[in-house]
């Protein structure tokens, strides 16, 4: 049961990160803050896992990273969606919507 939870979380985390980056390049801290703020801190995401996901997606070629300057003029690593990443986001969004819809339907038939 616990593994299933994690798997779900894994895919979900990737999806959230990809979605976050659709508004433009962000560094890891910004991604983490944005997710936390948007979900009103309801999703408790370990930030270590978030960075792991970022790096893994960079390796897969979904994201592209470059060093730039942050708002407060510090050197930071900025992540950006690649064409492949956008495709991935579309595909995963579709899967997730379908999945959520199915679960929701089951819960409705009480």
């Amino acid at each position, binding site marked *: 049961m616990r593994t299933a939870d994690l798997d779900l979380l894994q895919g979900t985390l990737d999806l959230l990160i990809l979605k976050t980056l659709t508004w433009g390049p962000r*560094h*890891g*801290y910004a991604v*983490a*803050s944005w997710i936390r703020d948007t979900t009103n801190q309801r999703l408790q995401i*370990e*930030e*270590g*896992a978030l*960075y*792991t996901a970022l*790096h*893994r997606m*960079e*390796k897969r070629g979904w994201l*592209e990273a*470059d*060093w730039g300057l*942050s708002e407060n003029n*510090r*050197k*930071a*690593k900025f992540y950006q969606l690649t064409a492949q990443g956008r495709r991935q986001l579309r595909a995963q969004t579709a899967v997730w919507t379908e999945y959520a819809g199915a679960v929701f339907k089951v819960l409705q038939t009480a």
Partner: protein
Amino acid sequence: MTRIPGLRRLMRIERDRAGVDRAVDDELQFHFDMTMRELMTNGLNPDDARREAERRFGDIQRTREKLATIDRSRVGRERRAEWWSGVAQDFRYAIRGLRLKPGFTLAVVLTLGLGIGANATMFGIVDRLLFRPPQFLIAPARAAALYFGVTNRGKENLGTSVSYPTFLDIKANTSSFDAITPFFVDQLAVGEGPATKEMKIGVLGADLWRMFDVAPAIGRFFTPQEDSLPTGTAVTVLSYAFWQTQFGGRRDALGRQLSIGSAKYTIIGVAPEGFVGFSPDPVAAFVPVTAESNAEIGPGLRLGRNRSPWYQNYGRIWLSLFARRKPGVTVAAANADLNRAFQLSYKHMLTVNPKRTAFDRARPRAFVGAVLRDRGPDEDNSAKVASWLIGVAGIVLLIACANVANLLLARALRRRREIAVRIALGVSRSRLLMQLLTESLVLAALGGVAGLAIAQWGGGVMRHALLDDEVTIDSAFTDPRTLMVVAVLVLAAGLLTGLAPAAQTSSADVSLALKSGGREGAVQRSRLRVGLLVLQAALSVVLLVGAGLFLRSLSNVRNIPMGYDASRLLWVELNSRGTPTDSVHDALLRDQLRDRAAQLPSVARAARAITVPFYSTWIVSLFVTGIDSVGALGNFTLQAASPGFLETMGTRLIRGRAFTNADAATGPKVMIVGQSMAARLWPGEDALGKCVRVLADTAPCTTVVGIAQDVRRTSIDKTEMHYYLPSAQFRPDQGGLFIRTRGAAPEHAEEVRRALQAIMPGASYVTITPLSTIIAPEIRSWKLGATMFAAFGALALALAAIGLYSVIAYNVTQRTHEMGVRVALGAQASDVVGLIVREGIVIVLPGVALGTVIALAAGRWVAPLLFQVSPKDPPVIVGVVATLLVVAIAASWFPAIRASRVDPHEALRAD
């Protein structure tokens, strides 16, 4: 992602392990700093903020390592992809550059192709002769051919042949071998009727199959029972190729009868594709040695007083033996064992033939040797010459590489500005080197393909023209060993030719090249090119000296007075093939054939004979009054000849008379002796009228009626003591014919064969062989050496000339300005020409000197392969030096003429 080729990405720092770690730390540091700042803004004290940040993050150390691992693998992959894209780009760049200059590319590819082709050709031949073990052979290291030496009159005859009883003795009395078998190739008529053709037949013992890792393609191999005395069983195993061509690969070939030689054999199996046993050539079929000997030799020996069957006759020596040492038996132990058995056999032979050389004087010995005959102790010179030619081919390749390096260097010099610009733009030098090497490797690879084509063609030419089809050479394109050698050569040539321009590039001074025009520094830089030229000239001298020495040897060999005109003679051999005859008919048939041949318009003369130079000899006992033992004076070989024989052969009669029809069977016995024989038997006396008793000291006198010119029949080094008896008086029912044609003999062979075959009875047939074909192997090594050294030498010289021309021409273009000044100051055209030509000679001279020294030093090793020529032969060396100088003058002549026509106005205004 688009990338600028060759540019280092300035923003990317995590290229190595430390860089990756640092980047991860920087990223995480930024994250913690930001998180803590936010938390502290919200009112937490620094300690609480840190604890909260760490809680939110999770296991920091583990995450840090995980991130580093992911990044390292990503960076590695990126670098590999970048490298490959670089290679692909260099490759495309090289191809594009070469396509823009088709003339240059063609010249380079051809030059390298000739060099690589020469090497591949020679490798194919030498590999066959010396290195490659027979296909399918099990444990080649333990397999051996057996060699036997018997001393006769103080001289050891070393060979591979023994009699069948000796084979049986050795087989019975040795314990070192787990297989021992006769194997030889016989030329026999195969098939029946007009389709009959002489083919090579492998003759072997049943043990042979065990020495090879082979299974029959269909059917089975023959068994020891089918290869047993006295007659064997007439069964045959076809070669795969013969089965395919003659039986269309059909299974029902099994059980059919096939005429081979004098007998019919039942087909019991087909050998796998490519199997030839120990033969250097393809063979048509394999037959048991017992069955073949029984059919071809007959149950009893017809000649002489000894009428024992072939398998008991120690005098009939014709089997080559092959054996395999048992595992763990050393060569020394096997030699001792074999030697003992052979000596035992010799002693046994002496009990049967007590008149043979006594044991103590014969000193029989035997040992195991290389399976490949050309590596054995009785190798002929061809293999040695071929090994030399490998070295020669290597030199040709070196010269070709030097030339190509020179061309590439000239190109690199022309491209100095382009290269400097690229370096200034930040393209790394290592990438530039890679690019230049890629170009030369692509050129070398194209050269390799051209080389394979040349080797394919050259191998065929060598095989037909020089090796008399005695060696099979695989197609260069499909032989893996040749392909591997070519691949290595391509790599070596690519690196070698790319090296000079690469060195040039890496030492290039960017600012100098950008500032100055094309002129500065060019003269200094061509020093490397001049060095290459000196090397080329030296190597050319070495090869040309070799060519000269071999050509002189060949001409010496060809000018030897053989005592007969080999080029105009055909040898006609009769094969009875089981057609029953008697000696009266045999004698009559031979006379008929001679008369029929003499009527042909293309035939000048025809005469009967029983022995053939370099093919067969006949020795019988002679007795002369006043001489204790004629045999002790040397070997006296005999020829039984019909009237007209000497004219047919072109052998001069010195004194006395030739044979006539009056020298009939019943007439007084007569003989003609050669000069050497006359001088040996009757020194200081007139041989005419002397009495010789043939075969026995009780025989009636055979009177010497003529003295003939000496002939060379077994060795081209020395004349032979030779004599002639009338065919009518000695073996009238044996032997064949010599036919003197009006033109070159080989052209008339088929015509003569058809005419003579028409009167052959039954299944019997004639074979026609030009005498020149029989003698060819004797002069093969000199012919091989002369042809190949000359070909390679000419190639080397041409390459050196092209190299010299291109360097001089290049220098002249570089010095247009200087020439203009000279002309403006009043230099005549002849002064300018003289200046340039002198320069060409000055470049070549040190090379010539160096090459001469090398040639003189190497002469010691090549001397044994020459024929009556000193390796320091002055005419050859002087001739070669003169040739080189003439070539140097010719190569610099045209650039010199061009330089002399420089218009001073234009030359000075330009630039």
